[in-house]
C-alpha cells in the first residue's frame, strides 16, 4: 500500500498517474455521497471524501478504514490533508477533520511508502526501499 497525501491542488494525482503510469480506468473517484468500500481499482482518489460520506451515513470510520487497509494491500491511496486549518464550527466537518487525520495515521503506519506533495514537489516521508525510493 502506498499513501500519497498533501493539501488541495498540490499535484497528488498528477504525481501518481505519472509515477505509476496509470490511466483513468485505474482510478476510483470517491464521492462524499457514497459510503461504499472503494475497491476494485489500482488507485483510490480523495479518500477524504469517502470518509465524509461515511460520517454523513453515521458509519464507523475507524473500523471501515481498518477493513480498507486489510483488504487492499496493493492499492495506492491519494488523500487530501485537511489537518492544518481552523477547527470547523460544523460538528460533521469537525468529526471529518479528525477522522481523516486518524485514517492517514493508520494508513501511513501500514503503507510501504508515504509521499507528501508540496506545490507539485514530492517528498518521500517513508519508504521500505521497494517501489518508491528516496529519489521519488
Amino acid at each position, binding site marked *: 500500500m502506498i499513501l500519497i497525501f498533501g*493539501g488541495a*491542488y498540490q499535484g497528488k494525482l498528477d504525481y501518481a498517474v505519472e509515477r505509476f503510469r496509470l490511466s483513468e480506468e485505474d482510478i476510483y473517484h470517491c464521492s462524499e455521497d457514497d459510503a461504499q468500500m472503494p475497491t476494485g481499482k489500482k488507485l483510490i482518489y480523495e479518500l477524504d471524501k469517502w470518509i465524509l460520506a461515511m460520517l454523513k451515513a453515521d458509519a464507523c470510520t475507524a473500523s471501515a478504514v481498518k477493513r480498507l487497509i486489510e483488504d487492499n494491500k496493493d492499492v495506492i491511496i491519494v488523500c487530501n490533508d*485537511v489537518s492544518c486549518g481552523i477547527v470547523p464550527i460544523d460538528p460533521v466537518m469537525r468529526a471529518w477533520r479528525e477522522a481523516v487525520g486518524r485514517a492517514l495515521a493508520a494508513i501511513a503506519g501500514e503503507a510501504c511508502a508515504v509521499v507528501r506533495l508540496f506545490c507539485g514537489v514530492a517528498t518521500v516521508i517513508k519508504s521500505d526501499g521497494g517501489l518508491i525510493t528516496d529519489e521519488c
Partner: protein
Amino acid sequence: MKVFVSGGCKNGKSFYAQRLAKDAAHIDGGISLPLYYIATMRPVDSEDDARIARHIDERDGWGFATVEQYERIEEILLKCDCGGSFLLDSLTALLAEEMFRPDGRVDEQAAVRIVQGLTEILDSVSNIVIVSDYIYSDAAVFDPLTELYRKSLAMIDRVAAEMCDVVLEVAYAGVTVHKGKDVFRHEACV
C-alpha cells in the same frame, strides 16, 4: 539562485526570504548586486498602511529598493536591472490584486496572466526569492470564489516551484528543503 518559499502565515517566512535575497546580493569580493523588494499589495485602508510601515521598518538598513507592482508583474523587468537580486513578496497578494479588481469585477483569468508574467521573470533573472502562502490544508468547504482563489494560487505556486532551483517550506525555526538539497546551502536560522 531562484528560490520559492511557502508555508503557514506569520511564521517568519518573509523575514527568512529577505535574508536569502540579501545574501544573494552579496557576492564574493565585496561586490553587491542591486537588491529589489517587489511590493505586490495595494494599500486600501489604514490597516494596510500600518502593515506596510511595519514592513518598511523591518527592511530599514537592508539596502532594498522598493518597487511597487500590484499588477502586470512582468513590468518589473522594465524597471529593474535583471542582474540584481529580487524578493517578490507575495504571490498571494499579487493574485488577490489581479483577481479582485478595484472596480469590483472578478477576473477568473488572473492566474493564467500571472503564470505568463512570472515565467517571463524567471526566464530573465538569475537571483530571485518568491514568497507564497500554503493555504491548502483546511477542513472547510469554501464559497466558489474563495475556492477559485485557492485553486488559482496553487496553479501559480506549482509553476514557480517547477521553475525555481530551490523549494522551501518555512515553519518558524524550521526550514524543509523540498527541492534543491544539492544546491541550497543556507543556515536554517529563521
